[in-house]
Structure formats: C-alpha cells, structure tokens
C-alpha cells in the first residue's frame, strides 16, 4: 500500500501520515495527494539510487550498486562521523539548555508561560537564514564580539569565532532549540505533582528526587526532543554553510552538493537513502523504548 511505504520516510512525514491514517482509508483525494507528494518522490529517489550517470550528467537507467559502494569511501565515512558528532553535540547542548528552560516555563504563572512561549516561537516567524546572518554579524571578525573585545583592548587580533565546529553547533542549537523545549515542556506539564510530594514525603532530597522521579518520568520528552533535534541536525546544510564556511561538512552538505554542483543525482539519492535509514532506525529505537509518536508531534 502506498501509504504504508510513505510512513517509512522521515519522522516528520511518518508522523503526519500516522495522524492521517484513519482518514486515508476514507478520503481518497487525500490518499492520492499523499501518494503524489510523498510516496512518488521517495520511490523515485530509491529508484535512481540504483542508477548511474553518463558524461553529460544524465541519469542512465541501468541497475548498479556503485552508488552504495561509494558510500564506504574513507573521506565520506569521516564526514558521516563528523556529522553525527555535531548532531550529538547539538542534541546534548539543547537538552542542557532546554530542560531547565522547559522546567522554568512549566512552573511559571500562565502569563509568564505565554511570554516565554512567544520568545521561544518568535524565531519561527522570521527566516532562519536571516537569523543566522545575524549570528554571523555577531561572531564575524568585524562582528560585535570582536569589536567590543578590541575596543576594550583585551585582544589585538580578531578572534576566529566563525567557520569552525563551535559556530556550527551554536547555529544548530539556535535553530533547533524550540524542538527540544516543547516536547520536554509538554511532559513536565503533565507530570503529576503528587508524585513529587510523595518522593519528598518518603525522604528524598531535591537532587535525588529529581534523579529518581522527575527525570525518569520526563525522559520521554527528552527522547522526543532529541529525535526532533538530532535528525535535522544531520541535514541542515545551510547552517554549516553559513556558520562553518567550508570547514564543517554534514551529511546534508554532501547530499546537497551531489544534486546542485556535481549533478550526480544517483549518488545523492543513495546518500539520502542512508539518511532516511538513520532516521528510521532512530525513530524505531525511540518507539521501542516506549516513546510515543504523538510526543514527536508536540509542535
């Protein structure tokens, strides 16, 4: 069934589809729409990943595994490793910032809560490219931080704050943080306060209470948020382009280059399939450990 194939795409698509699943059986125009928009392109990507190209970069329809063989190129493997590392770091930092933020938000008065929510969502109303350019003007060699430090006489040479892993991770955290905060916030809001009281009543000091009760009962939010942050962090090539210059390569960069510069669509397709598989494995691990698809839909 077409809708079934489609569910095995990305977390996003799968989520959308799962929600729509009961409708699909009844509303045929929707089914058709989904098939056209999601299933067909994906099947096409899968199909051309087994093709090759001629000198004029035209796709040649002849079955080959060469695109998949090329995946095991050492430089490519190191890019994969690097990309996973950056996504992991992004995730970790997002948890460290997002969890306290979500906790404070959940324990605030309704007014403050709304205010914090607005601040959190505000960036969504402007293009993230523009916002990243904002960061560039802060971190650049003529940027805000360097100007301040230089005028204070603390440094003579501008610091290289852009074009490194640090800048990429910063940009990623900046763009993806709301996706970490919202699922955690939702879970903390739902947390039964009497459980915390019971823990205190039984002699748990705040730190142990957090570790033994609060954290385990809100870990589903952390997992959901991590999925929502980790997967895009593998692919957001524009972040690494803007913040990392050429220094940092993500899986997303390699894929984009195959389609836009090298015109090797079959290889790009094979790389995409790998990304999809990574996504599916992560989502599967998430649901296996008791995570709910609905929590991924917290946005």
């Amino acid at each position: 069934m077409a809708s079934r194939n489609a569910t095995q795409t990305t977390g996003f698509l799968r989520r959308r589809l799962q929600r729509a699943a009961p409708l699909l059986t009844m509303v045929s125009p929707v089914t058709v729409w989904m098939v056209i928009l999601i299933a067909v392109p994906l099947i096409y990507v899968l199909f051309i990943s087994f093709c090759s190209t001629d000198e004029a970069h035209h796709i040649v329809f002849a079955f080959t595994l060469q695109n998949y063989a090329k995946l095991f190129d050492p430089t490519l493997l190191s890019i994969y490793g690097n990309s996973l590392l950056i996504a992991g770091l992004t995730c970790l930092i997002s948890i460290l910032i997002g969890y306290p933020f979500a906790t404070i938000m959940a324990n605030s008065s309704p007014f403050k809560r709304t205010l914090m929510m607005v601040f959190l969502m505000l960036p969504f109303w402007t293009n993230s490219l523009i916002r990243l350019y904002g960061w560039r003007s802060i971190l650049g060699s003529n940027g805000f931080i360097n100007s301040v430090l230089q005028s204070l006489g603390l440094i003579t040479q501008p610091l290289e704050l852009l074009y490194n892993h640090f800048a990429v991770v910063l940009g990623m955290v900046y763009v993806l943080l709301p996706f970490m905060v919202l699922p955690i916030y939702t879970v903390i809001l739902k947390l039964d306060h009497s459980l915390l009281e019971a823990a205190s009543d039984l002699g748990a000091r705040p730190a142990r209470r957090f570790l033994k009760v609060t954290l385990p009962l809100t870990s589903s939010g952390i997992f959901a948020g991590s999925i929502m942050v980790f997967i895009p962090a593998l692919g957001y090539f524009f972040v690494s382009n803007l913040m990392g210059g050429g220094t940092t390569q993500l899986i997303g960069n390699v894929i984009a280059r195959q389609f836009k510069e090298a015109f090797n669509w079959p290889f790009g397709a094979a790389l995409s399939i790998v990304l999809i598989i990574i996504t599916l494995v992560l989502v599967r691990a998430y649901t296996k450990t008791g995570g709910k698809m609905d929590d991924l839909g917290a946005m």
Partner: protein
Amino acid sequence: MLMASQAIVELKNVDKRYGENHVVKDLNLAINEGEFLSILGPSGCGKTTTLRMIAGFEQQSSGTILVEGEPVEDKEPFERNVNTVFQSYALFPHMTVFENVAFGLKMKRTARAEIRERVQEALALVQLEGFEKRYPSQLSGGQKQRVAIARAIINQPKVLLLDEPLGALDLKLRKQMQLELKRLQKRLGITFVYVTHDQEEALTMSDRIAVMHEGILDQLDAPSRIYDFPATRFVADFIGESNIFDGLASPQGKNIVVTTEAGRVLGQNSGGFEEGEQVQVSVRPEKLRFDSEAREGFDLEGTVRENIFVGTFIKSILLLSSGQEVVLTSLSGQAVPEEGRSYHLFWEPSDAVILHSRSQEIWSTIANVDLSGFSAEADASADAGSAETGGANAAPASAGAASASAASASATPAAASAPAAAHRQKARA
C-alpha cells in the same frame, strides 16, 4: 485538657489563608501517640489543607505545628518523621511494587539485604506477597491502595497521614479496607490521622473524631460522644440524623424546659443555661417517642405524614403544628405510628442535647465582621472562649451554621423545611 507530653502532633492556633480565602481558622488540635484520629467534615472544609500542613507541603499562615514536641516550621517534608498516604495513591508509575515500597528505605541508604527483608515484611502486612515485580498500572484500585500504605509505613513513621485513602474504592472493598486499616493501626501502634468526609467511616474506625466545618474545629471527641452529645448544631446535623428545635430555655432543677414554636419540651440541664436563653434542642430520630397521651413536661404533637421502611427500621415523618417536620425511627417489630394520625411526642430528657444558640450568634457576628487588620486578637479571644468549654466542646460554629440555625429540623427534606424556616423568622420578627 491533654498533657503536652502525650501529644505526638499538636497544632496551636493554626491559620491558613489562600489570599482572601481563610481555609483553616485558629485550629487547636492535640493528637495522642498511638491513637486513630479522624478529621471529619464536608468537602472543602479544610481537611486536606490541615493534613498537608502537618506533612509540610503547605506552610501555615500563622500558628505552630509541633511533631514530637518540636516545632516543624523549618523542616522540609523530607525531614519530618511523618508519612502520607495520598488520596490518589501517587505510586511511582516507573517503578515496580517492590521499588515503590523500597523507595523510603533507599532514600535512607539502607543496606540492600535489609531493604529486601523489610519490603517483604511490609508487603506481607498488606497481603501483597508475590506482587513485587508488578507495575502500578497492573494493579487494581484496592491493590494500589495497599502498596501506598506499605510504602508509607516502611520507614516506621511516628505518624501516618491518610487523606481519604478509601475514597476511590467501591463500597464493599471500602468496608473491608476499613477493618484492615484499623487492624493494621492497632498492630503497628502508629498514630493515624485519617481524613474523611464519610461520617460512618469515621465513626467505625476512630478512637477520636475531629469534626471540622468551614475551617473550624467544631468538636473533638470519641465517636459515641460525638454522636450522643454533639457540641454544635453543625455536628448534630452532620453526624447521623437529628431533629433540631429552636426555643427559649428555662432551667428547672435537673431539667430544662424549652419552649419551642411547636410546644414545650424537656432536656437535661447540663449547667450553664440561663433563664430565657435562646437554645437548640437536638434529638436523634431513634430517641423520639410517641404516644396517644401527653407526657409530663411535653406539649408536642405531630401528625404522621408518611412511614418509610428502611431495612431493619421504619422511618416516620411527622408534621408539627409549627410546620416543622421531624423524623422518628422505630425498629421493625416495635409499635409504629399510623399514617395520618396525630400523636404526642416526647423523649427522655437525658436523650436530648441542648445547645447554646446565643453563643453561636455571637460567634457568627464576630466571624462576619471584617477583622483582617487584627484578626489575630479576635481569633485568640475565640480560643479563650472555647477553652472554657473544656476543649472537647471547642470552637464556635461559623457564620454559615449560625445563619442556618434559623432553619428547622435538619432531618426534613430541604424543600419541606424552607417554608417552616420562613414561618419561623416571621414569628420572631
């Protein structure tokens, strides 16, 4: 009064306000070591708040709470030697039964072997052996309840606080658990402070009952005394059924003649009543008697409206000349008044409780005045007033009860009593 050394928990002049909402009013309560004390009152009267202040989840607005003779204001819940059984059980959903029960011991860093042994013991005590590996979601309501109790007693607290622990169970299981809890309490010798709105539950289980009402402690006494000698109109109303007559007192030797709108009646003179004082006479339906001839001292007649058969007894509703309805119960097998006939009504003077209604009006006046600026003094004087009556017949009724005191017998259906109340007020005016 109780000796201070006997009290394991003591509340002194405790007040609790949520903003404008005065939830607990000048509460004085000494709980004895090893007793089963129930806090009984209608929903919203401040029972849970009182319990939560003892546990440390809420801070009182003023007053002192002592546990084992020491003030606990500065102690966090995890530092207090009391444990709570929560209304909703509050079992940790991510832990097994074993881990739930072991939680308190783990927090104390008890050795593993000892934890194992003591958890087994606690589970045996609540008859849940073999359930160690289950999760709360795999338990029935009654089983969850038992786990909650085992978890709360594992640290051998001096005091166990229970907030309507049986509220969510069905009637049959509730009855069974009542007996089990009572047995458990006797066996462990732990002081139980048991919150309930179910008077029957409180009467069956408790050594003493504290009846609360709109944040005020109306009476603190043994169940039988609460039933036989209610200290306020509210208590007479809330515990069981009562026929309440408003009237004027005239003490005559060991009895008091009370002239009510429906006629003259007698009550026992327990002292402290003045000639012409406004009082209320409270008589239980089973103490009310009837005859075709008048009894000495009584001049009260009622017409039987209806006889209702309620299992082992028969409930007769009688209409008095004042328009007030009263309830009389007779055991089946005894003589039952005939429907439609008129009878003379009477009772043993010692079976009637006479309440000062004048004092209630004074208290209601005080409660009505806005004393937000110097309420502490007012509360203190209220305490001094009630202390005279010996602690047992303690605090005054609140504004609500006193204004309600114009209404007639509690036992009558509201609709029927309303015209009677209106009638009475006209008569007074």
